[in-house]
């Protein structure tokens, strides 16, 4: 019986390895191009938001100083709501893209810092607008840590739920405390409200530490909002639950 003489297809193995590595590098390069595009897009959006902020600021100034009445509040409120929705959306994208990327970390961090400042700016502006327009509106300043807080996402879920339910009646301003070392403004607010644990919510100047559960948050938010049907439904649900419990 003849035993075979073994061969080694080294040429094919090398060619296959080279092709695979080339395809792989092409994939990675596309990833780098994509990250650049994402940073550029976020930067562009941020610039537009700067302009929108100036517009909101001017509108508030006009209403409070020149017109001195709240008849045109709907314009201010609509602009504010649209801009904050934009800010929310692009901040979500920023967090998502940053998580995806292993490069351009410095640029992402700078963008995050800018977005955090924008959130604080808009929170202050929204407070001002609420006073000028006496609007039925709840403002939530939400402190969380992306790196050192495993329960923070739970609070995010509950806030998103109410945001979807109440739309423009609820404005949430998330602040990532991990940025505090780079951004003194965050430290300033933390000190002002004595925030030492996360998540923490500031609603109407009152501090709520730890995860504020759905029912508790519903009570807090809906006691501030009278006109919204979602809150009317909410109170009805609470009442029927209470009736069920008492038998």
């Amino acid at each position, binding site marked *: *019986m003849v035993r075979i003489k073994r061969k080694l*297809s080294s040429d094919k193995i090398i060619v296959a390895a080279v092709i695979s590595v080339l395809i792989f590098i*092409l994939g990675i390069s596309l990833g780098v*191009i994509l990250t650049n595009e*994402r940073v550029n897009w976020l930067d562009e959006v941020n610039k537009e938001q700067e302009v929108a902020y100036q517009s909101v600021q001017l509108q508030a100034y006009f209403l409070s100083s020149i017109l001195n009445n709240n008849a045109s509040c709907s314009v201010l409120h609509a602009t504010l709501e649209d801009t904050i929705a934009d800010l929310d959306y692009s901040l979500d*994208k920023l967090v998502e893209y940053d998580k995806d990327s292993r490069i351009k970390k410095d640029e992402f961090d700078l963008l995050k810092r800018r977005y955090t400042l924008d959130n604080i700016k808009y929170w202050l502006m929204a407070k001002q607008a609420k006073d000028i327009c006496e609007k039925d509106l709840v403002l939530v300043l939400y402190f969380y840590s992306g790196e050192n807080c495993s329960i923070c996402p739970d609070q995010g879920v509950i806030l998103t739920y109410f945001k979807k339910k109440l739309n423009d009646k609820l404005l949430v301003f998330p602040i990532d405390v991990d940025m505090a070392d780079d951004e003194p403004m965050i430290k300033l607010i933390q000190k002002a409200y004595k925030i030492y644990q996360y998540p923490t919510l500031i609603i109407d100047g009152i501090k709520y530490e730890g995860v504020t559960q759905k029912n508790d948050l519903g009570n807090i938010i809906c006691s501030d909002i009278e006109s919204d049907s979602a809150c009317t439904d909410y109170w009805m649900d609470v009442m029927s639950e209470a009736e069920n419990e008492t038998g």
Partner: protein
Amino acid sequence: MLLITEIILRGMYLTSLFFIVFWLLLYLSYRSNIKKQNKKVRNPSSYPKVTVVIPAYNEETSIVGSVESVLELNYPKDNVEIIIVDDGSSDNTSKRANDVIKRNPNRNIQLIKQKNKGKAHALNNAMKASKGELFVCLDADSYVDKDTLRKMVHMYQTEPDLAAIVPAMKVRNPRTLIQKIQRAEYINSLLLIRLMSYMNCLYVTPGPFSLYKLDVLKKLGGFDETNLTEDQEIAYRMQESHYRIKHCPSAFVYTNSPDTIKGLYHQRNRWFSGSVQNIIKYRRLIFNREYGDFGLFQLPLNVSAFLLAFGIVAFFINFSIVPFFKELKNLYLVGFDITPYLKDFFKFNMNILDFNISFQFIIAIIFLAAIIVILIAHRNSEAAVFKYGWIYIIPYLIFYYIFLSFIAVIVVVEMLIGRRKEW
């Protein structure tokens, strides 16, 4: 942690990509041989005596069909010896076998009964009684095509240095989704088997109608009765002794495949356990230059298939099971009130930048290559791609290998904790 996951993930991509590119390259380099071989089907110059052994354990429903398919072979009847080995069946396997023997008094068929000692023991028993020059094993749940033996013998005569010839195995009458998926798997495997055959890398001589040179089998000491996959073990042993195994792509044999997930699980659990057993037994061959492509390519591929299985399972858990439970927890947090989310359900807000192109590009390339392989494989085995519809292709491409990976992981874990397995 995240960085390690990413490195593992990218390593998996690169490994999968490499193997797919390699097989495609190999196919391209052997394309002309494949075309020539497809056309060339000639009769043997002579008809050596062949022993067909049918080991059977509780196969009363299929044994008659298997024997009859051998009786109908286009091969001189006097040169076919049939040995049925009843491996201690508790059903009517022996009775059915005797019925066939009585119905065919002019044919050389004998029945050997043994205590239940497994397939390898049955084959070794038959080997002692065998008078043929060539020894063929046919599982009792498989059926051979009329011209298969003729084609294999022709190949044996044109290449007398062959120690074993492997047929082209197909799933018989697939009815359930599970069987249709296995049909696709078998057809794809046929292409790989063909390419492995060109590289002298075949590491299994499957139970359904593999043909062996009897004197080689005897020289090697017969089948290993302690092994879970004796058909794989004998092939490894032949490779270890530098014997040549070749695939005969036009020699078709049809086998019953499991029709339930449970049946499939048990079959693959045994196959994979046998694979691990053989990888461990023949570990000295891995990365051994003396064994050429078999040692430096095929065996590392067999090992990396298990590593890849671990990666696939981790990937699946990380990207499907964990997010599922996360969503469940999120719903719990909001009292399972999904109404606020429904209004956004049909809002399609696509941003091109949201695509993680570097990963999706490679996944797309792998899927594209997999589809090309499926098309080539179907053409290679003379099978129509959409003969049984197309729906099963989707679970085959997306879920089937995840399922197999889970079995492979279970097998490795079972072996690590020392769980004993029997045939």
